[in-house]
């Protein structure tokens, strides 16, 4: 795994990217921004290409959409920092957010993908746009199309790009070095979660026509006891563990008589798990959020309250006494009547 990208190639491409960014940053006079952006995106593209080749070698090529959205995200991120007009920067940032959310989707984080669009692109960035509109000098006053001096060109583009890409080089070096050393992965625990969602199990079983079970959590999953038939339905979350001889990994329901101590292969009646008896991403996230981090949720609420208060305090009229009031104040302080 160490050879994900050859270090020399990695640093070469990163250096190229740095040069590209440095060129792309706005300058007062000659500013070949397009060229720079192309170089930078090309460098990133080259990196992803190499990674992709490596991935296809190992047979774990990511979804093709990944590459598209990754390049869009990086390209628009680049545009955020290079576009001389703040409004466009903010719009490009929305672009970055949107492509990020697509990447979230590719990674299977559906809830967060949509939350990102709604909260970030929808709420926060709109506020930004609003403030940019509010705070920019209106171009009509001056010659239309001119930029504020501080937007027109970048500060220390070369040094900043060098520092940024040095940081990127360090981060990637260490992360790629660290990847193969990472600990064993945890198991996806969404099925174990079933145990804690008795209502969901109940609904799914009802839909399959398996009614009248009393649901109880057990260590392996949910046992649904059918009092009438003296049957116990156990949903096994890890079949391979449940029985080492089974190689396929579909989830199955195991029906067997109550009171059976050990389950031999021969004693097991296999049945397919009812359709819909799985846990969605949103359920997982919700459970993790509510059951796993309830106090953090409260804390986030407190922070939002604080931020609201802070924004109100900051944005309203400050205690700046007008000239008359100042004069009055001096008299008050001095006279003391």
């Amino acid at each position, binding site marked *: 795994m160490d050879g994900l990208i050859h270090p020399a190639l990695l640093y070469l491409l990163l250096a190229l990217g740095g040069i590209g960014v440095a060129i792309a940053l706005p300058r007062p006079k000659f500013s070949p921004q397009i060229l720079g952006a192309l170089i930078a995106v090309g460098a990133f593209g080259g990196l992803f290409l190499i990674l992709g080749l490596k991935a296809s070698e190992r047979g774990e090529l990511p979804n093709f959409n990944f590459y598209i959205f990754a390049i869009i995200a990086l390209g628009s991120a680049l545009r955020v920092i290079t576009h001389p007009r703040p409004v466009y920067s903010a719009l490009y940032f929305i672009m970055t957010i949107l492509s990020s959310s697509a990447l979230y989707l590719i990674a299977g984080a559906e809830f967060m993908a949509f939350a990102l669009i709604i909260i970030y692109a929808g709420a926060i960035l709109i506020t930004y746009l609003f403030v940019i509109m509010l705070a920019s000098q209106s171009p009509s006053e001056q010659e239309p199309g001119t930029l504020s001096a501080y937007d027109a060109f970048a500060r220390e583009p070369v040094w900043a790009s060098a520092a940024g890409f040095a940081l990127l080089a360090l981060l990637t070096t260490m992360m790629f070095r660290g990847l193969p050393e990472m600990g064993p992965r945890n198991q996806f625990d969404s099925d174990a979660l079933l145990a804690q969602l008795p209502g969901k199990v109940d609904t799914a079983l009802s839909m399959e026509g398996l009614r009248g079970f009393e649901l109880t959590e057990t260590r392996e999953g949910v046992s649904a006891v059918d009092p009438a038939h003296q049957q116990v339905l156990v949903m096994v979350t890890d079949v391979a563990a449940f029985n080492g001889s089974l190689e396929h990994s579909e989830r199955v329901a195991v029906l067997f008589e109550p009171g059976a101590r050990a389950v031999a292969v021969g004693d097991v009646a296999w049945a397919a798990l009812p359709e819909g008896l799985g846990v969605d991403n949103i359920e997982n996230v919700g459970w993790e959020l509510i059951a796993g981090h309830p106090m953090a949720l409260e804390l986030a609420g407190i922070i939002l309250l604080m931020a609201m208060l802070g924004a109100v305090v900051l944005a309203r009229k400050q205690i700046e*006494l007008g000239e008359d009031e100042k004069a009055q104040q001096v008299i008050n302080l001095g006279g003391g009547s």
Partner: protein
Amino acid sequence: MMSLATQGMVLFADAHPMVEKITHLHAEIVLFIATVVVMVLGLSHNAGMRRLCGGVSVVALIVAGVLGAMTPDMAHMPMPGMSGFLKVVIAAVGVLLVLLIEGTVDRAYENTVRKTGVFDGLRSTRGEFYAFMLFSLTGLMLTTGADDLIWLFLALELTSLPTYVMVSISTSRARGQEAGVKYFFLGAMGAAMFLYGFALLYGASGTTVLFAPAGEVSIASVFASNGLGAMGMLGLVMAIIGVSFKIAAVPMHFYTADVYEGAASSVSAFLAFVPKLAGFAALILLLSTVGWTHGELHDSLPDAVRIVLWVMAAMTMTVGNVLAILQKSVKRMLAYSSIAHSGYMLVGLIAGPGNGGLLAGNGLAAVLFYMLCYGFMNLGAFGVLASLERAGMGGESEEAETFADIRGLCATNPLLGWTMVLCALSLLGFPPLLGFFGKLFLFTSAISAGEILLVVVMGINSAIAAFYYLRLVIASFIDEPTAESRAFGVTAFGSRVAASAISAASVVVLVLAASWLMGKTGDAVAPSPTQQVDLTAVDGIHATIAPGGAEE
């Protein structure tokens, strides 16, 4: 058949750490309630009600301190008693900070109201100011007990976000806003750094839980069994560097002087204690996940982390001290010295809890003790500045700021003058004042950890510190008062003077209790007897469930 019902209950209890956690949070809850009360009180049309804000805050802090003292130990933490101890410290210093902050914001406005009797709710910032303070203190208390990365992240943000607002509104001068902008923007960058570090820590370990009871997965247990790895190392170092923004350590120190100078003195005192303590608590927790057991003698951090901290500590001390020498403004000088003090305390972090051998100086206890000392002496020094004011432009009073402003203070105002002298000497580490014991403890722990070179650097830096702390002593004690310095009178807010004087008195009186206090800090960071990183536990998690069906 198994007792399904009972087992179900147990499972349910396991799944809801809320019930368990909330028993540790009584102090924070009280503070939050007080925050809301203060927010509402501050909007009252009745001036008497508005003035209650300070009182309510003080009472709430005292109650929170008592509750903090009663906090049960968090057995799964590496240092179960730390949170409870720190809550008491926070409450104690917090009370003084509230007293000091009295009247910071709207003196001019309050005076106007007093004269005219017209209240304009839109222009009062009194109650909110206390609210922000209590928010921040709540966040600080939450930081000390963080056992989860998410929790730690949120608590750190709750600690710092209000301080950004406090700095911005602490004076109506442009400087306050400049300080606010710098502090906020650089703070956000620091936050992004440690957030990225947290993300990598999560990536390296697969969990956000920092510490968990034996047998459960936590970052600490994963690191203990699998090693840190490059990913974990990167995450840890980025988290450390990001968090060191809060403690104003090099290279994240740049904002310090500008912000402390731009903010009102009382807010500077707040900044020098609250975010700094939060930063050190967070650093202690983060470093505890890897532990100080990586050296040849099982007595140090992993090499790379140790060296990074080493460089940071040495640079921080030196940069803070050499820049402090050049300052004309006392506030700026104290800001740079605050950087230097962070450097001293980083030495304690490097030393770690010691290995229990000959002269097991406990560096973490030393850090906490030093933080306690620093809280008092620094508050006293800033408090003197906050207590002196003169009529400035536009009817708004100006606080004392430069060395020239406090010339001959011992002659013109002996109480404040001696407060300044005592606090300066204590900051210098002059025996037998409290600061001396703080340094003594740090030195001892560093020596016992074998960091001789660092101790020498620290010693040299303590000597350099004499240059500028003595200027404080000279200015207030030896120099003659000038017309300029005589223009400064004592503020109308007696509580500020009281806060400064109490701090100075603590610097002297607590010396007698130094032994007791050191014992307390030692207890606070005593390792949990049950906290053994169980190597088998981690394997157990990944082990598949043995076949066997329903168990008995």
